[in-house]
C-alpha cells in the first residue's frame, strides 16, 4: 500500500478518535458532576431535617 495513503488513513483515524474522545470525555465529566450534585443535594436535605 502507498505510504502516503497509510499516513492519510492514520491522520483521518486520529481526527475521528480524538473528536470522540473529547465528546465522550465531556459527557462522562458532566455525568459525574450531575451525580455528585445529586448526592450533595440529598445529603443536605437529610441534614436539614
Amino acid at each position, binding site marked *: 500500500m502507498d505510504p502516503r495513503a497509510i499516513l*492519510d488513513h492514520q491522520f483521518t483515524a486520529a481526527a475521528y478518535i480524538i473528536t470522540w474522545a473529547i465528546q465522550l470525555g465531556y459527557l462522562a465529566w458532566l455525568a459525574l458532576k450531575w451525580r455528585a450534585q445529586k448526592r450533595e443535594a440529598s445529603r443536605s436535605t437529610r441534614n436539614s431535617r
Partner: protein
Amino acid sequence: MKKAAIGLYATITVALMIWGFYQAIYVAPEEQTMHEVQRIFYYHVPSAMVAFLFFAISLAGSIGFLAFRRNRPAYAQISDAWALAGAEVGVVFCTVVLITGPIWGRRAWGIWWTWDARLTTTLVLWLIYVSYLLLRRFAAGPQMQTLAAVLGIFGALDVPIVYMSNRWWRTQHPAPVFGGGPDSGIKDPAMLAAFGWNVLAWLAWGVLILALRYHVERQHQKFAAQEAQDALDA
C-alpha cells in the same frame, strides 16, 4: 413520559451519529486532491457550525441575564444557566475544531499551524470562552455572573469575525464551503449528503449535551439558593 422522550431523542441521536460516520467514511467518495484526509472535513466543519450556534445561545443568555437581573431574578438565573451551558458546550466543539483542523493541515499543508486570520481568530474565540469558564469557576461574589455575562457578549463578537475572516483577508485556510461566491458549495451529491447527515448528527448530539449541561446548572442554582435560605433560617 419525559424520560421516554429523552430516551427516544438520545436513541435517534446515536443512530444519526452512526449513520453520519458511515456516510463520511464509506459512502462519500474520496476527494481527488486531498484523498482520504479530506474526510476530516465531515467532523471539522459541523463542529465549527455547532460551536458558533452555541456561542450564539450563550450570547442570548448573557443579554437575558443583564436584562432581567434587576427586575426578574428567576428569569435572570435561567438566562445565566443557558449562557453557561452554551459557552461550555461551545468550547467543547471549538476544541474539536482546533484539534481536527491542524491534523488535516499537517497532511494538506505540511504544517500543524499557521498564524493566518481564520486560525488565529478561532484560537482567540476559544481563549475568550475558556477565560469565561475560568472566571465562572474561580471568581466569587454577586458580581461574578454580571462580569461573565459581559465577557460572554464580548466573546460572541468574535464569532462573525471568525466566520468572515477568510472572506475579508487572504488566508491559507480553504475558501468558504457555503456562501463564498458562485464557485462555493459541495458539487458531489454523495459528499453533500455525508456533510448534511453529519451536520444533523452533531447538532442533535450538541443539543443533547447542551440540555444536560443546562439541567445540571439549574440544579446547582436551586441547591445554592436552598443552602443560602437554610443559612438565613439557622
